[in-house]
Protein backbone atom coordinates (compact mmCIF):
# COMPACT_ATOMS: atom_id res chain seq x y z
CA UNK A 1 0.00 0.00 0.00
CA UNK A 2 1.37 3.37 -0.89
CA UNK A 3 1.18 6.34 1.43
CA UNK A 4 -0.96 9.22 0.24
CA UNK A 5 0.99 12.27 -0.84
CA UNK A 6 1.50 14.90 1.81
CA UNK A 7 -0.37 18.08 1.02
CA UNK A 8 0.20 21.24 2.96
CA UNK A 9 -3.14 22.02 4.67
CA UNK A 10 -2.69 25.71 4.01
CA UNK A 11 -2.22 25.01 0.33
CA UNK A 12 -5.28 22.75 0.31
CA UNK A 13 -7.49 25.39 1.95
CA UNK A 14 -6.25 27.99 -0.55
CA UNK A 15 -7.04 25.73 -3.47
CA UNK A 16 -10.49 24.97 -2.17
CA UNK A 17 -11.21 28.66 -1.56
CA UNK A 18 -10.11 29.55 -5.04
CA UNK A 19 -12.30 26.83 -6.48
CA UNK A 20 -15.34 27.98 -4.49
CA UNK A 21 -14.78 31.66 -5.29
CA UNK A 22 -14.62 30.91 -9.00
CA UNK A 23 -17.91 29.07 -8.81
CA UNK A 24 -19.60 31.89 -6.92
CA UNK A 25 -18.18 34.60 -9.20
CA UNK A 26 -19.98 33.08 -12.20
CA UNK A 27 -23.36 33.73 -10.54
CA UNK A 28 -25.39 36.90 -10.43
CA UNK A 29 -25.51 39.05 -7.33
CA UNK A 30 -28.11 39.56 -4.61
CA UNK A 31 -28.62 42.80 -2.67
CA UNK A 32 -30.18 42.90 0.80
CA UNK A 33 -31.33 46.29 2.12
CA UNK A 34 -32.89 47.45 5.35
CA UNK A 35 -35.67 49.91 4.61
CA UNK A 36 -38.66 51.54 6.28
CA UNK A 37 -40.93 48.64 5.43
CA UNK A 38 -38.50 46.08 6.88
CA UNK A 39 -35.91 44.17 4.89
CA UNK A 40 -35.88 44.07 1.10
CA UNK A 41 -33.94 41.52 -0.94
CA UNK A 42 -33.41 42.01 -4.67
CA UNK A 43 -31.79 39.42 -6.92
CA UNK A 44 -30.97 39.48 -10.59
CA UNK A 45 -32.74 36.32 -11.62
CA UNK A 46 -34.67 36.02 -14.88
CA UNK A 47 -35.24 32.29 -14.26
CA UNK A 48 -38.11 30.49 -12.59
CA UNK A 49 -35.77 28.80 -10.08
CA UNK A 50 -35.76 30.96 -7.00
CA UNK A 51 -32.78 32.26 -5.08
CA UNK A 52 -34.78 33.89 -2.31
CA UNK A 53 -36.98 32.00 0.08
CA UNK A 54 -39.03 32.16 3.24
CA UNK A 55 -37.59 30.44 6.29
CA UNK A 56 -39.89 31.52 9.11
CA UNK A 57 -42.10 34.34 10.39
CA UNK A 58 -39.38 37.00 10.33
CA UNK A 59 -36.55 35.22 8.54
CA UNK A 60 -35.69 35.04 4.86
CA UNK A 61 -32.93 33.30 2.93
CA UNK A 62 -30.91 34.37 -0.10
CA UNK A 63 -28.31 32.30 -1.89
CA UNK A 64 -25.86 32.71 -4.77
CA UNK A 65 -23.64 30.16 -6.45
CA UNK A 66 -24.57 26.60 -7.27
CA UNK A 67 -28.36 26.27 -7.16
CA UNK A 68 -28.60 22.68 -5.91
CA UNK A 69 -26.28 23.48 -3.02
CA UNK A 70 -27.93 26.61 -1.68
CA UNK A 71 -31.36 25.10 -2.29
CA UNK A 72 -30.36 22.25 0.01
CA UNK A 73 -29.23 24.82 2.57
CA UNK A 74 -32.52 26.67 2.28
CA UNK A 75 -34.56 23.52 2.84
CA UNK A 76 -32.44 22.57 5.83
CA UNK A 77 -33.13 26.01 7.24
CA UNK A 78 -36.89 25.59 6.82
CA UNK A 79 -36.72 22.18 8.49
CA UNK A 80 -34.70 23.51 11.37
CA UNK A 81 -36.96 26.54 11.85
CA UNK A 82 -40.23 24.60 11.78
CA UNK A 83 -38.96 22.01 14.23
CA UNK A 84 -37.56 24.71 16.51
CA UNK A 85 -40.85 26.62 16.45
CA UNK A 86 -42.84 23.46 17.10
CA UNK A 87 -40.55 22.42 19.93
CA UNK A 88 -40.48 25.83 21.62
CA UNK A 89 -42.41 28.85 20.36
CA UNK A 90 -42.55 30.93 17.20
CA UNK A 91 -40.64 33.77 18.88
CA UNK A 92 -37.79 31.40 19.72
CA UNK A 93 -36.82 30.93 16.08
CA UNK A 94 -34.03 33.46 15.53
CA UNK A 95 -31.92 34.40 12.56
CA UNK A 96 -28.69 34.45 14.51
CA UNK A 97 -29.05 30.84 15.60
CA UNK A 98 -29.76 29.80 12.02
CA UNK A 99 -26.81 31.77 10.64
CA UNK A 100 -24.55 30.08 13.19
CA UNK A 101 -25.83 26.66 12.20
CA UNK A 102 -25.15 27.42 8.55
CA UNK A 103 -21.67 28.66 9.43
CA UNK A 104 -20.92 25.50 11.35
CA UNK A 105 -22.26 23.19 8.67
CA UNK A 106 -20.47 25.00 5.84
CA UNK A 107 -17.23 25.19 7.84
CA UNK A 108 -17.27 21.45 8.48
CA UNK A 109 -18.07 20.69 4.88
CA UNK A 110 -15.22 22.96 3.78
CA UNK A 111 -12.59 21.16 5.84
CA UNK A 112 -13.91 17.63 5.42
CA UNK A 113 -14.87 17.22 1.81
CA UNK A 114 -12.62 17.61 -1.19
CA UNK A 115 -15.16 19.76 -3.03
CA UNK A 116 -16.37 22.73 -0.99
CA UNK A 117 -19.82 24.25 -1.44
CA UNK A 118 -19.80 26.97 -4.09
CA UNK A 119 -22.29 29.18 -2.30
CA UNK A 120 -22.68 32.36 -0.37
CA UNK A 121 -25.84 32.98 1.59
CA UNK A 122 -27.66 35.67 3.52
CA UNK A 123 -29.97 35.12 6.48
CA UNK A 124 -32.09 38.23 6.99
CA UNK A 125 -34.33 38.85 9.96
CA UNK A 126 -36.81 41.69 10.33
CA UNK A 127 -37.34 43.18 13.78
CA UNK A 128 -40.61 43.22 15.68
CA UNK A 129 -41.45 46.51 17.44
CA UNK A 130 -43.69 44.64 19.91
CA UNK A 131 -40.96 42.31 21.19
CA UNK A 132 -38.58 43.92 23.66
CA UNK A 133 -35.00 43.31 22.63
CA UNK A 134 -35.92 42.12 19.14
CA UNK A 135 -36.84 45.46 17.54
CA UNK A 136 -33.81 45.66 15.24
CA UNK A 137 -33.31 43.98 11.88
CA UNK A 138 -30.36 41.67 11.36
CA UNK A 139 -28.47 40.63 8.22
CA UNK A 140 -25.99 37.75 8.40
CA UNK A 141 -23.74 36.69 5.56
CA UNK A 142 -22.26 33.19 5.55
CA UNK A 143 -19.54 32.16 3.09
CA UNK A 144 -18.59 28.79 1.60
CA UNK A 145 -15.92 28.23 4.27
CA UNK A 146 -18.23 28.97 7.17
CA UNK A 147 -17.07 32.55 7.69
CA UNK A 148 -19.93 34.57 9.16
CA UNK A 149 -20.37 38.32 9.17
CA UNK A 150 -23.19 40.58 10.25
CA UNK A 151 -24.13 43.69 8.33
CA UNK A 152 -25.93 46.87 9.13
CA UNK A 153 -28.00 48.58 6.45
CA UNK A 154 -27.10 46.53 3.42
CA UNK A 155 -25.23 43.50 2.18
CA UNK A 156 -24.18 42.27 -1.26
CA UNK A 157 -23.33 38.70 -2.13
CA UNK A 158 -22.33 37.11 -5.42
CA UNK A 159 -19.70 37.58 -8.06
CA UNK A 160 -18.03 40.95 -8.58
CA UNK A 161 -19.39 42.85 -5.63
CA UNK A 162 -16.93 45.73 -5.22
CA UNK A 163 -18.63 48.11 -7.62
CA UNK A 164 -21.96 47.25 -6.04
CA UNK A 165 -20.69 47.90 -2.54
CA UNK A 166 -19.20 51.24 -3.59
CA UNK A 167 -22.52 52.26 -5.09
CA UNK A 168 -24.37 51.39 -1.90
CA UNK A 169 -21.80 53.13 0.30
CA UNK A 170 -22.55 56.44 -1.36
CA UNK A 171 -26.27 56.02 -2.08
CA UNK A 172 -27.72 54.01 0.81
CA UNK A 173 -29.90 55.92 3.30
CA UNK A 174 -31.62 54.52 6.36
CA UNK A 175 -35.43 54.12 6.34
CA UNK A 176 -35.92 54.39 2.59
CA UNK A 177 -39.47 53.73 1.54
CA UNK A 178 -40.04 50.47 -0.31
CA UNK A 179 -40.10 51.92 -3.83
CA UNK A 180 -36.89 53.90 -3.33
CA UNK A 181 -35.17 50.89 -1.81
CA UNK A 182 -36.20 48.71 -4.74
CA UNK A 183 -34.91 51.27 -7.24
CA UNK A 184 -31.63 51.49 -5.33
CA UNK A 185 -31.40 47.70 -5.38
CA UNK A 186 -31.96 47.58 -9.11
CA UNK A 187 -29.45 50.39 -9.79
CA UNK A 188 -26.89 48.58 -7.63
CA UNK A 189 -27.31 45.26 -9.43
CA UNK A 190 -26.88 47.00 -12.78
CA UNK A 191 -23.31 47.88 -11.80
CA UNK A 192 -22.22 44.24 -11.60
CA UNK A 193 -19.49 43.34 -14.12
CA UNK A 194 -21.21 40.16 -15.15
CA UNK A 195 -24.71 41.62 -14.77
CA UNK A 196 -27.21 43.17 -17.10
CA UNK A 197 -26.88 46.99 -17.27
CA UNK A 198 -30.55 47.37 -18.22
CA UNK A 199 -32.48 45.30 -15.74
CA UNK A 200 -36.22 45.12 -16.29
CA UNK A 201 -38.83 44.02 -13.80
CA UNK A 202 -38.91 40.53 -15.33
CA UNK A 203 -35.20 40.08 -14.62
CA UNK A 204 -35.60 40.68 -10.91
CA UNK A 205 -36.66 38.48 -8.05
CA UNK A 206 -37.84 40.61 -5.14
CA UNK A 207 -39.00 39.72 -1.65
CA UNK A 208 -39.69 41.82 1.40
CA UNK A 209 -39.89 40.96 5.09
CA UNK A 210 -42.66 43.40 5.89
CA UNK A 211 -42.48 44.89 9.39
CA UNK A 212 -46.11 46.00 9.30
CA UNK A 213 -47.51 42.52 8.84
CA UNK A 214 -48.03 40.10 11.67
CA UNK A 215 -47.27 36.38 11.62
CA UNK A 216 -45.47 35.45 8.43
CA UNK A 217 -43.81 38.69 7.26
CA UNK A 218 -42.35 37.23 4.06
CA UNK A 219 -43.89 38.54 0.87
CA UNK A 220 -42.81 37.88 -2.69
CA UNK A 221 -43.43 40.94 -4.88
CA UNK A 222 -45.24 39.85 -8.05
CA UNK A 223 -43.68 41.07 -11.34
CA UNK A 224 -46.58 43.49 -11.91
CA UNK A 225 -45.89 45.22 -8.61
CA UNK A 226 -42.14 45.41 -9.33
CA UNK A 227 -42.97 46.81 -12.77
CA UNK A 228 -45.28 49.41 -11.26
CA UNK A 229 -42.66 50.56 -8.74
CA UNK A 230 -39.80 50.71 -11.23
CA UNK A 231 -42.00 52.47 -13.78
Amino acid at each position, binding site marked *: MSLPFYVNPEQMARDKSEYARKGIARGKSVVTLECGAGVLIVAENPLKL*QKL*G*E*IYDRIAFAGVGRFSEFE*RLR*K*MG*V*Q*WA*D*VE*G*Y*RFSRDDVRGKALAN*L*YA*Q*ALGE*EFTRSSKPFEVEIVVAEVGDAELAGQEANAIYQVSFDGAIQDHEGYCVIGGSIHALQRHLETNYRANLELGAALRLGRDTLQRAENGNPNLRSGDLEVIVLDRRRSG*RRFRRLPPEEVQQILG
Partner: protein
Amino acid sequence: MHFWDGYRGTSFTELLEAEHPQLKPNLRHWFAEPGQLPPTASGTTCLALRFAGGALVAGDRLATMGNQVASRRIEKVFATDDYSLMAIAGAAGPAMEMARLIGIQFEHREKIEGAPLELEGKANTLAQLIRQNLPAAMQGLAVLPLFAGYDRRRRTGRVWKYEITGGRYEESEFECVGSGAIFARESLKVSFRENAQRADALRMAVQALTDAADEDRGTGGVDDERGIYPNVKFCTAEGVESAPDEEVAGAWREVLVARRRRRE
Protein backbone atom coordinates in the same frame (compact mmCIF):
# COMPACT_ATOMS: atom_id res chain seq x y z
CA MET B 1 -27.37 19.85 10.85
CA HIS B 2 -26.30 17.31 8.26
CA PHE B 3 -26.15 17.98 4.57
CA TRP B 4 -26.70 14.83 2.64
CA ASP B 5 -28.26 12.22 4.87
CA GLY B 6 -31.20 14.13 6.36
CA TYR B 7 -34.88 13.79 5.51
CA ARG B 8 -35.60 15.17 2.03
CA GLY B 9 -39.38 15.12 1.76
CA THR B 10 -41.90 17.90 2.16
CA SER B 11 -43.87 16.56 5.11
CA PHE B 12 -43.34 18.03 8.55
CA THR B 13 -44.81 15.04 10.39
CA GLU B 14 -42.53 12.67 8.49
CA LEU B 15 -39.61 14.94 9.30
CA LEU B 16 -40.47 14.67 13.00
CA GLU B 17 -40.77 10.91 12.74
CA ALA B 18 -37.47 10.53 10.90
CA GLU B 19 -35.33 12.97 12.83
CA HIS B 20 -37.10 13.97 16.02
CA PRO B 21 -39.28 11.01 17.04
CA GLN B 22 -39.43 12.26 20.63
CA LEU B 23 -41.37 15.35 19.47
CA LYS B 24 -44.06 13.47 17.57
CA PRO B 25 -47.21 13.33 19.67
CA ASN B 26 -47.81 9.66 20.29
CA LEU B 27 -51.13 9.20 21.99
CA ARG B 28 -50.57 5.48 22.43
CA HIS B 29 -48.49 6.29 25.48
CA TRP B 30 -51.09 8.44 27.11
CA PHE B 31 -52.68 5.70 29.15
CA ALA B 32 -51.47 2.53 30.80
CA GLU B 33 -54.16 0.08 29.85
CA PRO B 34 -57.07 -0.02 27.46
CA GLY B 35 -60.15 1.52 28.95
CA GLN B 36 -58.25 3.45 31.62
CA LEU B 37 -58.93 6.88 30.31
CA PRO B 38 -58.09 9.91 32.42
CA PRO B 39 -60.78 12.62 32.46
CA THR B 40 -60.37 14.83 29.40
CA ALA B 41 -62.09 17.96 28.17
CA SER B 42 -64.71 17.38 25.48
CA GLY B 43 -68.23 18.35 24.38
CA THR B 44 -68.78 20.61 21.44
CA THR B 45 -70.86 21.77 18.58
CA CYS B 46 -69.02 22.87 15.47
CA LEU B 47 -70.41 23.41 12.01
CA ALA B 48 -69.18 24.23 8.55
CA LEU B 49 -71.29 25.46 5.65
CA ARG B 50 -70.83 26.71 2.13
CA PHE B 51 -72.07 30.12 1.13
CA ALA B 52 -71.80 32.37 -1.91
CA GLY B 53 -68.32 33.72 -1.09
CA GLY B 54 -66.73 30.50 0.15
CA ALA B 55 -67.04 28.54 3.38
CA LEU B 56 -67.91 29.40 6.98
CA VAL B 57 -66.83 27.48 10.06
CA ALA B 58 -68.26 28.13 13.52
CA GLY B 59 -67.98 26.59 16.94
CA ASP B 60 -69.17 27.15 20.50
CA ARG B 61 -66.72 28.07 23.25
CA LEU B 62 -67.42 25.59 26.04
CA ALA B 63 -65.22 22.69 27.07
CA THR B 64 -66.60 20.25 29.62
CA MET B 65 -65.03 17.55 31.74
CA GLY B 66 -67.74 15.12 32.72
CA ASN B 67 -70.50 17.36 34.02
CA GLN B 68 -68.21 20.24 34.88
CA VAL B 69 -67.02 23.23 32.92
CA ALA B 70 -63.37 22.90 31.90
CA SER B 71 -63.18 26.19 30.03
CA ARG B 72 -65.70 28.78 28.87
CA ARG B 73 -63.58 30.45 26.26
CA ILE B 74 -61.87 27.64 24.41
CA GLU B 75 -61.32 28.18 20.67
CA LYS B 76 -62.41 25.32 18.47
CA VAL B 77 -62.12 26.99 15.08
CA PHE B 78 -58.62 27.45 13.67
CA ALA B 79 -57.24 28.99 10.53
CA THR B 80 -54.85 26.26 9.38
CA ASP B 81 -53.47 28.60 6.71
CA ASP B 82 -54.65 31.56 4.61
CA TYR B 83 -57.28 29.54 2.75
CA SER B 84 -58.40 26.77 5.06
CA LEU B 85 -60.19 26.35 8.36
CA MET B 86 -60.54 23.52 10.80
CA ALA B 87 -62.98 23.00 13.64
CA ILE B 88 -62.31 20.41 16.30
CA ALA B 89 -64.62 18.15 18.24
CA GLY B 90 -63.77 15.32 20.59
CA ALA B 91 -60.93 15.15 23.10
CA ALA B 92 -59.69 18.74 23.33
CA GLY B 93 -56.01 18.02 24.05
CA PRO B 94 -55.20 15.79 21.07
CA ALA B 95 -57.54 17.81 18.85
CA MET B 96 -55.73 21.08 19.52
CA GLU B 97 -52.37 19.41 19.05
CA MET B 98 -53.62 18.09 15.73
CA ALA B 99 -54.76 21.57 14.66
CA ARG B 100 -51.35 22.99 15.52
CA LEU B 101 -49.52 20.21 13.72
CA ILE B 102 -51.63 20.49 10.59
CA GLY B 103 -51.04 24.26 10.42
CA ILE B 104 -47.27 23.69 10.56
CA GLN B 105 -47.59 20.86 8.04
CA PHE B 106 -49.25 23.19 5.48
CA GLU B 107 -46.79 26.00 6.10
CA HIS B 108 -43.80 23.65 5.94
CA ARG B 109 -44.82 22.18 2.62
CA GLU B 110 -45.52 25.65 1.22
CA LYS B 111 -42.06 26.90 2.18
CA ILE B 112 -40.16 23.79 1.07
CA GLU B 113 -41.88 23.59 -2.31
CA GLY B 114 -42.52 27.28 -2.81
CA ALA B 115 -46.21 26.59 -3.43
CA PRO B 116 -49.11 25.75 -1.11
CA LEU B 117 -50.95 22.43 -1.26
CA GLU B 118 -54.22 22.35 -3.15
CA LEU B 119 -57.27 22.36 -0.89
CA GLU B 120 -57.93 18.71 -1.63
CA GLY B 121 -54.34 17.88 -0.72
CA LYS B 122 -54.81 19.65 2.59
CA ALA B 123 -58.01 17.67 3.27
CA ASN B 124 -56.14 14.43 2.55
CA THR B 125 -53.25 15.40 4.82
CA LEU B 126 -55.70 15.83 7.66
CA ALA B 127 -57.23 12.40 6.93
CA GLN B 128 -53.78 10.84 7.32
CA LEU B 129 -53.27 12.49 10.70
CA ILE B 130 -56.65 11.25 11.90
CA ARG B 131 -55.84 7.73 10.73
CA GLN B 132 -52.59 7.82 12.69
CA ASN B 133 -54.62 8.75 15.75
CA LEU B 134 -56.82 5.65 15.41
CA PRO B 135 -55.28 3.65 18.30
CA ALA B 136 -55.98 6.55 20.65
CA ALA B 137 -59.44 7.00 19.16
CA MET B 138 -60.24 3.37 19.95
CA GLN B 139 -59.49 4.16 23.60
CA GLY B 140 -61.90 7.06 23.60
CA LEU B 141 -59.61 9.93 22.57
CA ALA B 142 -61.17 10.45 19.18
CA VAL B 143 -60.53 13.63 17.24
CA LEU B 144 -63.26 14.48 14.77
CA PRO B 145 -62.60 17.66 12.88
CA LEU B 146 -64.41 19.53 10.18
CA PHE B 147 -62.28 20.93 7.45
CA ALA B 148 -63.30 23.71 5.09
CA GLY B 149 -61.66 26.20 2.84
CA TYR B 150 -61.69 28.20 -0.31
CA ASP B 151 -60.54 26.27 -3.39
CA ARG B 152 -58.68 28.84 -5.46
CA ARG B 153 -58.59 26.63 -8.54
CA ARG B 154 -62.33 25.93 -8.57
CA ARG B 155 -63.25 29.30 -7.05
CA THR B 156 -65.63 27.88 -4.49
CA GLY B 157 -65.89 26.99 -0.82
CA ARG B 158 -65.60 23.30 0.11
CA VAL B 159 -66.40 21.37 3.28
CA TRP B 160 -65.23 17.96 4.52
CA LYS B 161 -66.15 15.77 7.46
CA TYR B 162 -64.11 12.86 8.81
CA GLU B 163 -64.52 9.66 10.74
CA ILE B 164 -62.01 8.20 13.20
CA THR B 165 -60.59 5.76 10.66
CA GLY B 166 -59.49 8.67 8.51
CA GLY B 167 -62.44 8.37 6.12
CA ARG B 168 -63.14 11.72 4.53
CA TYR B 169 -66.39 12.86 2.96
CA GLU B 170 -67.04 16.04 1.10
CA GLU B 171 -70.32 17.79 1.84
CA SER B 172 -72.12 19.95 -0.67
CA GLU B 173 -74.11 22.04 1.83
CA PHE B 174 -73.18 21.87 5.52
CA GLU B 175 -71.96 19.52 8.22
CA CYS B 176 -71.88 19.51 12.02
CA VAL B 177 -69.82 17.62 14.60
CA GLY B 178 -69.81 17.23 18.37
CA SER B 179 -72.27 16.31 21.07
CA GLY B 180 -74.79 18.93 19.88
CA ALA B 181 -74.34 18.18 16.18
CA ILE B 182 -77.67 16.44 15.80
CA PHE B 183 -79.55 19.59 16.92
CA ALA B 184 -77.42 21.94 14.85
CA ARG B 185 -77.98 19.74 11.82
CA GLU B 186 -81.76 19.81 12.32
CA SER B 187 -81.62 23.58 12.61
CA LEU B 188 -79.57 23.99 9.45
CA LYS B 189 -81.79 21.57 7.58
CA VAL B 190 -84.59 24.10 7.95
CA SER B 191 -82.65 27.34 7.59
CA PHE B 192 -79.99 26.46 5.00
CA ARG B 193 -80.14 28.32 1.70
CA GLU B 194 -77.69 27.72 -1.08
CA ASN B 195 -75.46 30.61 -2.19
CA ALA B 196 -76.38 32.64 0.86
CA GLN B 197 -74.80 36.02 1.40
CA ARG B 198 -72.31 36.50 4.21
CA ALA B 199 -74.79 37.99 6.72
CA ASP B 200 -77.36 35.22 6.08
CA ALA B 201 -74.70 32.54 6.42
CA LEU B 202 -73.63 34.04 9.73
CA ARG B 203 -77.23 34.08 10.97
CA MET B 204 -77.80 30.44 9.95
CA ALA B 205 -74.65 29.42 11.81
CA VAL B 206 -75.43 31.35 14.99
CA GLN B 207 -78.99 30.04 14.98
CA ALA B 208 -77.81 26.44 14.63
CA LEU B 209 -75.32 26.84 17.49
CA THR B 210 -77.96 28.49 19.67
CA ASP B 211 -80.40 25.64 18.96
CA ALA B 212 -77.70 23.09 19.78
CA ALA B 213 -76.83 24.86 23.04
CA ASP B 214 -80.52 24.79 23.97
CA GLU B 215 -80.68 21.02 23.80
CA ASP B 216 -77.15 19.83 24.53
CA ARG B 217 -75.52 20.50 27.91
CA GLY B 218 -72.06 19.99 26.44
CA THR B 219 -72.48 22.96 24.11
CA GLY B 220 -72.09 26.54 25.28
CA GLY B 221 -74.54 29.15 24.07
CA VAL B 222 -74.03 32.87 23.84
CA ASP B 223 -73.00 34.20 27.25
CA ASP B 224 -74.02 37.85 26.95
CA GLU B 225 -73.15 38.62 30.56
CA ARG B 226 -69.52 37.51 30.24
CA GLY B 227 -69.30 38.63 26.63
CA ILE B 228 -68.60 35.15 25.23
CA TYR B 229 -69.77 34.52 21.67
CA PRO B 230 -69.25 31.60 19.32
CA ASN B 231 -66.20 31.68 17.03
CA VAL B 232 -67.17 32.25 13.43
CA LYS B 233 -64.60 32.35 10.64
CA PHE B 234 -65.12 32.97 6.93
CA CYS B 235 -62.83 31.68 4.22
CA THR B 236 -63.15 33.41 0.85
CA ALA B 237 -61.03 34.41 -2.12
CA GLU B 238 -59.58 37.16 0.12
CA GLY B 239 -58.43 34.66 2.74
CA VAL B 240 -59.56 33.90 6.27
CA GLU B 241 -61.48 36.44 8.28
CA SER B 242 -62.94 36.18 11.78
CA ALA B 243 -66.39 37.62 12.44
CA PRO B 244 -66.00 40.25 15.18
CA ASP B 245 -67.89 39.55 18.42
CA GLU B 246 -70.26 42.50 17.80
CA GLU B 247 -71.32 41.03 14.49
CA VAL B 248 -71.95 37.60 16.04
CA ALA B 249 -73.86 39.26 18.89
CA GLY B 250 -75.97 41.15 16.34
CA ALA B 251 -76.83 37.93 14.51
CA TRP B 252 -77.70 36.30 17.83
CA ARG B 253 -80.12 39.13 18.71
CA GLU B 254 -81.78 38.74 15.31
CA VAL B 255 -82.24 35.04 16.03
CA LEU B 256 -83.85 35.83 19.38
CA VAL B 257 -86.19 38.41 17.85
CA ALA B 258 -87.28 35.94 15.17
CA ARG B 259 -87.94 33.30 17.84
CA ARG B 260 -90.07 35.69 19.88
CA ARG B 261 -92.04 36.66 16.81
CA ARG B 262 -92.71 33.02 16.07
CA ARG B 263 -94.19 32.52 19.53
CA GLU B 264 -96.43 35.57 19.42
